[in-house]
């Protein structure tokens, strides 16, 4: 039986993480995601499931606690908002290099620098193109509702362990702060030590006589071995592209124009699609759910069908680069967005569609 509640996105994520059988959360407060740790502290999951919740001394400490927990095969997570996620980048690169599974939530706010506490989507490049150093990829999920904030906690762990890779959930202040109805899964028991040994034979769970030592590191000074490791990582990323691309296509079947938008922008754009259709203009919405892997193939296919594409992002235009890569020069691709924590209204999107795509 699923349980129905009215919750903030941040709270729904926190509750869902407990229910997904998480072993530990390590974080440091920052608006607009502080409710994640607040909720966990108030809920005391230690008493419910034995899950540890710890406020670290800094974001850097928190991500390295995640590294340690993940190395032991535990289901561990952290959360922060843009400036805090910047601080975590070194640790994320190490986790990707050491091939450790974990879930990281970014409830993004406007930047650069300390920026503002209001919602933004200007961390797309950081999330999908590296952020930290080295050739690595995170699997990036972009929720556009409170329900997905809850669902992606469990899905995040599933994918992280499937690929031994960090999973980033790229949300924003609007989805973190708003309340919607959410259906919560039942409590999934945490894995026992025995189960962890069986499920994650690579983890540092204590050497037994019948096997070699497990070593978790991102360091290999032998360049030939380091290159082989990189080739393995790249093969894994191609595998993710093959298996894990997720998107939602709304009103795309008969669309003559297309909006591509994720997260909060996708919600605003959905209303814009309704308004444009009421004017008799056939517009569809393609919502990437995974930002890496990006739904390149479906966008390339829609480019053959539509006369123009508008990307809507709360940034100066970052995802538009991936849309243009998918589309090539076949149709016009333009960007509309607001920055600095301003949320565009659906009618602004309608106007942009008219000015930049239909009339342009």
């Amino acid at each position: 039986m699923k349980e129905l509640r009215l919750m903030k996105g941040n709270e729904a994520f926190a509750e869902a993480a407990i229910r997904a059988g998480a072993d530990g959360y390590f974080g440091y407060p920052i608006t607009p995601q502080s409710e994640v740790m607040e909720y966990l502290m108030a809920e005391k999951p230690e008493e419910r499931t034995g899950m540890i919740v710890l406020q670290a001394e800094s974001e850097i400490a928190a991500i390295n606690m995640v590294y340690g927990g993940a190395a032991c095969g535990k289901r561990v997570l952290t959360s922060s908002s843009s400036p805090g996620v910047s601080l975590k980048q070194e640790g994320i690169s190490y986790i990707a290099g050491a091939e450790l599974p974990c879930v990281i939530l970014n409830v993004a706010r406007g930047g650069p620098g300390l920026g503002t506490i209001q919602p933004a989507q200007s961390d797309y490049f950081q999330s999908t193109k590296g952020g930290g150093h080295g050739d690595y990829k995170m699997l990036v999920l972009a929720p556009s509702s409170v329900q997905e904030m809850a669902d992606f906690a469990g899905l995040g762990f599933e994918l992280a362990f499937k690929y031994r890779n960090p999973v980033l959930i790229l949300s924003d202040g609007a989805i973190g702060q708003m309340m919607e109805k959410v259906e919560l899964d039942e409590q999934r028991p945490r894995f026992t030590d025995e189960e962890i040994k069986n499920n994650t034979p690579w983890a540092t769970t204590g050497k037994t006589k019948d096997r070699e030592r497990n070593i978790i590191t991102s360091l290999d000074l032998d360049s030939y071995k380091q290159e082989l490791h990189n080739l393995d990582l790249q093969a894994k990323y191609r595998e993710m592209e093959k298996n894990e691309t997720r998107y939602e296509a709304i009103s795309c079947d008969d669309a003559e124009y297309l909006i591509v938008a994720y997260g909060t922008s996708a919600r605003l754009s959905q209303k814009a699609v309704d308004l444009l259709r009421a004017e008799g203009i056939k517009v569809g919405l393609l919502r990437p759910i995974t930002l890496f892997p990006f739904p390149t193939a479906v966008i390339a296919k829609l480019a053959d069908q539509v006369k123009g594409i508008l990307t809507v992002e709360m940034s100066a235009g970052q995802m538009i680069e991936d849309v243009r890569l998918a589309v090539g020069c076949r149709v016009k691709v333009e960007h509309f967005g607001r920055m600095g924590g301003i949320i565009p209204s659906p009618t602004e999107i309608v106007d942009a569609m008219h000015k930049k795509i239909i009339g342009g």
Partner: protein
Amino acid sequence: MTEEIIIAGFGGQGVLSMGKILAYSGVMENKEVSWMPSYGPEMRGGTANVIVIISDERISSPIVNSFDTAIILNQQSMDKFEKTVKPGGILIYDPNGITRHPGRKDINIYTIEAADEASKVGLSKVFNMVVLGGYLKLKPIVQPEYIRKGLEKSLPKRHHGMIPENEKAIDKGKEIIKAVHLLN
């Protein structure tokens, strides 16, 4: 049915919790709901607002820029949100502290002297419920039994003793809301 509402006033007037009770009542009645608060610097400066949407259908955008109903509880919010009411829509305000009254002719305007009335009958703590009562008289989008369930869900258990007082305040609001400009 889709009702898009903005509730705006000072922090501490119970703007966000009024929205929450309304949203929870909608959930209890099995409707789709969203509750989008202002959480930014304006909130820290003393004003607070929340967009509540209640609908029979899936809600596309939780953020909209025009509203079926605006409930306005201070002058800054009047300046900001009077113009966002859809033509034919409703504006409800407490005239207490308002220096520039709304002047639009294409919407229905009501006053509710909730602050005065609440303090008169010793219900200052549930001032926001007086306002909610006035709104529900005009737009009974959720049934009274679900409002009670909404109160139970959104108030912490230790405050459940105050539910009868909240219900009394809602009834008071229904009594005292007054039309000042009506469309034909």
